[in-house]
């Protein structure tokens, strides 16, 4: 168990800057998820922390000790890979024993047996112990992979999209299982994924990474409700947040074609006035937009439903306001049909504002 500190780490591959001055501190016993799209530098970060990849500059601290120059074996972190990487020449039991038998640990056989039995029980893989790894299903393989990580007590667990190769149902199961496991072990988890659902459901804190830059760190709630940039706003949340360009029209904000004219609150107006800019980006989550048959006084604009996805618990509607298309999620009880003319109501209290140029949050 240990805390983990990444201090101004940079890494380039040829001409590509994979990580640009990355700083991050993960607390002892925390479930930290690094979230970002493909190519953001997530895996590189994990590989640098584990010592598998050399950084160009910067430092890595594990348990307040500078391990920057240590080889992977002595850093004592466990790594769960996206591809299961069970050693094909060893069976399940031998795979689980492998870390304990390493020359630097050299655990006595009776302790190995005890530990393996314990781990097998925790992960419900007792019946698989004598099997060949090639005959396991994906879910079983990843269980063994996780087992190989928890069989010793590492300083931290590094997980590189361990669930991305599983089918949807199994992924959901493993999500809750991993959360439970982390609580049970009380250990530091550094988890990397591009799947926002995984991040939102499991993380104590999330870091959003894009193009080697850490954009925001916060609890899942903070990330969702107070995204600090349009990228985070767009990346987290499904369907994604609607982002519209608006400009001042006297005291209100209007979309370019003036299909929508938002009556903002006094507080919002005061905040935006300080910015002294003619244009802003307004962000509305789909769930903050509702549809009504009758026109309301403010922030309700005429729209046509032109596409509808029924998700069971909710409907996702694409609403067309003149030239603009906005997504809204509404309860399925509403009974909307494609082509219907309705009034789309924007709950302006929940609006997010971003700078047009920097794309950073305004507040």
């Amino acid at each position, binding site marked *: 168990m240990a805390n983990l500190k990444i201090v101004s780490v940079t890494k380039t591959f040829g001409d590509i800057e994979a990580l640009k001055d990355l700083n991050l501190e993960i607390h002892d016993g925390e479930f930290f998820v690094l979230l970002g799209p493909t190519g953001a530098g997530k895996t590189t970060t994990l*590989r640098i922390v584990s010592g598998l990849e050399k950084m160009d500059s910067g430092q890595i601290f594990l348990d307040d000790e500078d391990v920057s120059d240590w080889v992977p*074996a002595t850093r004592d972190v466990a*790594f769960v890979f996206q*591809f299961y990487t069970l*050693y094909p020449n060893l069976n399940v039991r031998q795979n689980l024993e492998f*870390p304990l038998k*390493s*020359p630097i640990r050299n655990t006595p056989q009776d302790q190995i047996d005890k530990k393996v039995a314990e781990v097998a029980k925790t992960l419900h893989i007792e019946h698989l112990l004598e099997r060949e790894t*090639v005959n396991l299903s994906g879910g079983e393989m990843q269980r063994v992979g996780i087992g190989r990580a928890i069989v010793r007590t590492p300083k931290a667990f590094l997980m590189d999209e361990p669930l991305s190769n599983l089918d949807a149902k199994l992924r959901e199961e493993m999500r809750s299982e991993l959360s439970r496991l982390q609580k049970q072990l009380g250990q530091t988890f550094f988890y990397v994924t591009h799947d926002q659902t995984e991040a939102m459901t499991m993380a104590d804190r999330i870091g959003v990474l894009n193009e080697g830059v850490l954009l925001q760190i916060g609890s899942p709630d903070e990330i969702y409700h107070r995204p600090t940039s349009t990228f985070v706003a767009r990346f987290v949340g499904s369907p994604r947040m609607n982002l519209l360009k608006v400009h001042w029209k006297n005291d209100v904000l209007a979309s370019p074609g003036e299909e929508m004219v938002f009556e903002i609150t006094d507080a919002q107006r005061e905040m935006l006035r300080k910015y002294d800019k003619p244009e802003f980006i307004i962000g509305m989550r789909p769930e903050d937009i509702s549809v009504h048959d009758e026109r309301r006084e403010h922030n309700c604009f005429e729209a046509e439903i032109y596409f509808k996805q029924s998700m069971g618990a909710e409907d996702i509607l694409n609403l067309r306001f003149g030239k603009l298309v906005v997504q809204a999620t509404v309860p399925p009880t509403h009974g909307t049909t494609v082509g219907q003319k309705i009034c789309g109501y924007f709950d302006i209290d929940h609006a997010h504002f971003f700078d047009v140029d920097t794309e950073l949050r305004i507040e």
Partner: protein
Amino acid sequence: MAQVRENKGARKAIVAVVLIIFTIIYMIPLFYIVNTSFRPWADIREYPPKLIYQPSVAAFIRIFTARAVYPPGQAPTEQELKDMSTIERIVYKETNERIVRTGDLPRRYLNSLIICVLSTMITILLGTTAAYGFSRFPVKGKDDWMFFILSTRMLPPVIVGIPVFLMFRNVGLNDSHLGLILLYVAFNVSFAVWVLKGFIDEIPREYEDAALVDGYSRFQAFRKIVLPQSVTGIAATAVFVFIFAWNEYAFAFMLTRNTAQTVPAWLPYQMGVLGFDWGAAAAGTTLFLIPPMVLTILLRNHLVRGISFGAVRK
């Protein structure tokens, strides 16, 4: 349904027939050699060859021995004939010869074995480690190096034979085991590196990454994870390298005379007092075929998977 099954059966039969024909064509020279080695001296030169003959092991005895012809009028007496061992009597009856001493074959055979086994082992050792390095590490100018390694195979041995001969003479490697071993290693290591690199490339790096994180050094990860997974490739490469070395003629012919002469360089010189001994040469060849055959049979499971060069691996 029945139609389909019948077609399938017919196709199988055709494939079988074609394969049998090819096998027969390929087996003819082999059959001819083995057949010749069992023919009695008198039958070998007969044309057209007799189809039915009394098989004889005299040729095998002759290849193992040095002999002298009984001079005219000095034929062994009745009593002497009785005292002869079976082997001596067979030789005497067929070619009127007396066994003087053990021949050169065992020594040549031993030379071949020593040189081929050692050079194969060294080649595989160097080849595996070099292939691993090229496969896993960012070697500067990797492609150029790989091409350079391959280029050592581009010249036929006959062309480099004379320079190599002169160099070997200067450093005293002519007609020595070490000389041929070095040469075979140098020639075969390029093949081994290329083939083995293909095999090692197929093994995902993540296995080693996992082993490194699990507390093993790079070398331990190589030994415990990479090596067991590349056994198939190593076995296939080893068989090829061994056979290359075993069959090598040009260098052996040019660089060895006596001490280190290998079987291929020696076999053609079966000139006896009675003329060229085709039977002995054929018998020597038959014996010469055995080691590669045994090796291939022992490693056949690896070979079938190995020759497809990783294509079957999941």
